[in-house]
């Protein structure tokens, strides 16, 4: 846990002409983590990922990754006319760290025919070929842009399983963007919420869950309570309100109930309140 972060962004920003796609983005991703990058469309997720893998250069700030990085772009592009075998050859010829035995074993285990053209494979199979291409580079960091989009539930499960196996095997660090929260619950242990080009949340998912509570009670006491705890989101009627607060267990009045939040509630609460933020304090190590 004393390892340097595998990916570190400091004051990172990217401007397209006059519009900032990403601004003032600082985050550190510890080694061995599987990080989910979530946020609404247009939040700058793809921009951040492209900066992380060097496809884009920053307009301001820095982004740095230790070791080799592999990238699976959105829609998992492959050369459609290449056979599976040729796609692996492409990977081998263009990457000095290529593990050819691993690549062929993985493709064989998945039952992908080597002589089939990539364009003729199903979406799930193409995703697996693309994933193999990324994994066989033996990267320290694998970045995936919407890897689960356009896949059926079974293919999503298979892709995630392949990814998780690779993490278990090699201690790979993963950063993946998605807008389907349910796919991330069991697979990710780090959360980055991006909203309007800014990082709102970055941290360990278990710690985030443990650090937030949903408090429900009468509306007239809500303001008093809000002064004691940091309220992320507030919803409810005139009589009863629910506060999603950044707090551990706290003593509450008899009319109040509290319960833990789940990941989806937490993310939605932050996305609804772009001003709220849950970021590690700069002086504290986040790992």
């Amino acid at each position: 846990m004393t390892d340097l972060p595998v990916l570190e962004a400091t004051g990172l920003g990217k401007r397209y002409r006059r519009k900032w796609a990403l601004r003032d983005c600082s985050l550190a991703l510890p080694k061995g983590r599987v990080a989910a990058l979530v946020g609404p469309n247009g939040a700058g997720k793809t921009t951040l990922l492209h900066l992380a893998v060097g496809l884009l250069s920053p307009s301001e700030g820095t982004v740095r990754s230790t070791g080799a990085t592999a990238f699976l772009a959105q829609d998992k592009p492959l050369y459609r006319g290449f056979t599976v075998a040729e796609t692996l050859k492409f990977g081998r010829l263009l990457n000095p760290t290529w593990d050819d035995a691993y690549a062929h074993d993985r493709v064989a285990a998945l039952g992908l025919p080597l002589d089939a053209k990539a364009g003729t494979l199903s979406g799930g199979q193409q995703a697996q070929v693309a994933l193999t291409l990324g994994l066989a580079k033996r990267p320290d960091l694998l970045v995936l842009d919407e890897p689960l989009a356009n896949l059926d539930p079974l293919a999503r499960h298979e892709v995630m399983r392949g990814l998780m196996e690779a993490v278990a095997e090699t201690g790979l660090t993963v950063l993946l963007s998605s807008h389907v929260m349910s796919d991330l619950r069991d697979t990710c242990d780090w959360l980055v919420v991006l909203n309007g080009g800014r990082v709102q949340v970055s941290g360990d998912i278990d710690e985030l869950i443990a650090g937030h509570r949903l408090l429900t009670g009468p509306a007239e006491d809500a303001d008093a309570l809000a002064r004691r705890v940091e309220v992320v989101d507030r919803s409810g009627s005139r009589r009863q309100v629910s506060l999603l607060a950044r707090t551990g267990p706290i003593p509450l009045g008899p009319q109040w109930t509290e319960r833990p939040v789940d990941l989806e509630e937490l993310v939605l609460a932050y996305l609804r309140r772009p001003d709220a933020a849950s970021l590690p304090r700069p002086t504290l190590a986040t790992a």
Partner: protein
Amino acid sequence: MYWMTYRQHRTQLLVSAALLAVIGAVLLINGLLASGAADPRESFKAIYVYLSWLPVAPIAVGVFWGTPLLAAEFERGTHRLAWTQSVSRARWLAVKLGTLGLAVAVAGGVFGLMVQAWIDGYPTVRAADRFGDIALFSMTGVAAPAWWLFGFAVGTAAGALLRRTLPAIAVTIVIFVLVMVGLFRLREDYAEPVEVRIDHQSEVPHGMIVGTLLDAEDNTVGLRVQPADRYWRFQWTEAGILLAAAALLTGATAVAVRRRP
């Protein structure tokens, strides 16, 4: 990278080589028959009718080799696959443009030599003039590969800048035709023409005829001519203009590639 380039453009390479072979075979057969023909002029014309269209062959190079080179990658997103391997973007582009550019130049050169050899089979036919004929000039010497490279560069740049194949094809065709029409006109002025006095008995001089000299009664008394021995000087001038333009376009391509996420 070289395997990659070959594999990606295998079809274009093979089809182009086959087309060149067909053109070569037709020219060869026609040339062999010409020596025994009763009227070599008829034999020449039979092929020239078609051959005179081939100065636009570089458009095909631009459209089939140039435009998809980058636009097809951008359209399918595969450039992100290529650029996130362990080969730098600059090297990726350099190998692709270098290898394919060389192939295009060689193909254009071979085409030029074939046309030249065919012309040489008609020493007695006046129309078989590589300098005086506007089409044959573009298809022989160093101008032939230069035109092909220029077509390739236009197509590649259009694909890189527009990022989509179809519009890039349209732009390539328009730009190429404009430049061709422009250079065909400009070509007459690569050097100051020589004035040759003629009368009814004198033979028309060899070379590129660029104008007539009239007397006060509007009778033709002479011709403005670029003499035949200026062929290579004109060839290098035209090749220089085209290669400079191709270099500029390639620079634009490189900038477009560098900026593309």
